[in-house]
């Protein structure tokens, strides 16, 4: 009933089982790699590698399609827009008046799009294979303050609630003859006010209730909080971590030590 899609799919693949802290580290390292690599070939290999991981995660096609719809649109947009701002280099492929399309600019556009594809996909894999609560818990374990983790968890937890509330408010106003997306700017603004005010009122009530509930459940009672669940690194987790480090270090060494054009 809500527009909210949790990207996580239950599964028991290697990517699901690996310690979330290793996954978060891997995502960060692979993101760095995507930034450092500059040749299209190298980035294409990286993208292919990440895509293999997506397949290995056994995420249902519906969810991957849903997620990649946005990535593809973004990549396409970059390829189209890049040459508009970057007209340097030879040879010129085509020109329409002031608009010039050169081969190097096109190449740079495609390269950037591929880089963005790598970055987005690697984060998607984390979301596909890790429950949100585990991501939050792993962040706290990695040293982020518990308060911050809790805030993040609460935001994630209440996202579907507020989506549903806003859906209900829009329904209630539509039932009173309000048409969204119609009329002049003034009318449109007023239409949004009709949703915004009830939404704010509802959010404020929820926030009140939330703060009472937190206190009543002894939040902040002592500094030495315990945790029901803990992550334990298994040998396979260390192995995975080592593999990820290698994936980062090998190309970097090739690029900066041996001067390969990657």
């Amino acid at each position, binding site marked *: 009933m809500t527009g909210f899609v949790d990207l996580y799919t239950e599964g028991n693949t290697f990517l699901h089982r690996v310690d979330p802290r290793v996954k978060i580290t891997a995502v960060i390292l692979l993101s760095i790699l995507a930034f450092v690599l500059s040749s299209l070939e190298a980035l294409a290999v990286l993208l292919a590698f990440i895509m293999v991981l997506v397949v290995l995660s056994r995420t249902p096609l519906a969810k991957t399609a849903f997620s990649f719809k946005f990535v593809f649109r973004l990549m396409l947009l970059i390829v189209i827009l890049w040459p508009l701002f970057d007209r340097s280099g030879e040879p010129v492929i085509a020109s329409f008046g002031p608009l010039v399309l050169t081969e190097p600019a096109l190449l740079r556009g495609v390269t950037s799009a591929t880089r963005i594809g790598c970055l987005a996909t690697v984060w998607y894999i984390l979301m596909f294979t890790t429950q949100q609560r585990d991501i939050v818990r792993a962040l706290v374990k990695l040293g982020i303050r518990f308060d911050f983790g809790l805030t993040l968890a609460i935001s994630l937890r209440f996202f579907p609630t507020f989506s549903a509330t806003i859906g209900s408010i829009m329904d209630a106003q539509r039932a009173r003859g309000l*048409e969204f997306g119609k009329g002049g700017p003034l009318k449109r603004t007023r239409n949004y006010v009709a949703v915004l005010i009830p939404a704010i009122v*509802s959010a404020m009530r929820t926030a009140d209730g939330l703060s009472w509930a937190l206190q009543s459940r002894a939040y902040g009672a002592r500094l030495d909080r315990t945790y029901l669940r803990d992550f334990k690194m298994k040998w396979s987790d260390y192995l995975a971590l080592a593999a990820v480090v290698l994936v980062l270090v090998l190309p970097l060494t090739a690029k900066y030590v041996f001067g390969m054009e990657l």
Partner: protein
Amino acid sequence: MIPAPSPGQGDDKIISVRNLRFTYEGGVVAITDLSIDIRKGDYVALVGGNGSGKTTFAKNLNGLLRPSSGIVTIRGRDAARTAVPELAKIVGYAFQNPDYQLFCATVEEEVRFGPLNLGYSEDDIRRKVERALDAMNLQHLRDKPPLSLRLGERRRVSIASVIAMDPDIFILDEPTTGLDTEESDMLMQKLQNLNVEGKTIILITHDMRLVSEHAKRVVVMSVGRIILDSDPRGAFSDLEILRRSNLEPPAVTKLAHALKDKGIPADVISPQELVFHLLRGGESR
């Protein structure tokens, strides 16, 4: 009885639903196969537990949801082909939580909002607003900010804002939740007045006491179907039906059922009635 609204329609069916099926995005089937006719001036209680499909059904009547298949006809028009604001002129829908719609600075503005959206003339709007404020006993509060009012009053404002659109059909979702007996009685009396004026009322509720006191007809829903359609007494004489739709019969009805083989009729719905039967004899009615 008020005559049929327009010639050529032949009968006084104001709502006609044929083989309605509704599936939410993501594949949840909320209505499996539902057909029903509702006459003008009827007072229907639509009952069932959460998840029975009653709200989904109601939203198919005013265009907030469109049938996945089947036909919903409102006053002779195909609801699927009619825009929501057009339907809003015929079907008014008061949501359970008034705070999901109240946003204006005064009660009067709030009540004006609906008819203003529907594009009525200023004169017309003024008349409709006055009538709505009268109908819900809100004249003395017209300049107050709606959010400063008590829950019972806020609910009346939300219903007045529906009355102001002057629909023939009123759908009310749990209008008495959270109200005190006095406020609840007053509201139900106002709804009764609307019904006497010839308006069709569809009351969504799981309060069987409310049903027994006000409705002319009870439609019981369970997992997306109608499992009973009868007068209120019929609904109370079958405890199994109520349980199947996650409803709880009122205590007197349970007591009457317990005393069934002692000669007490099973469809007793008020304490007065039960005591009458106890003291005057179980078979004289």
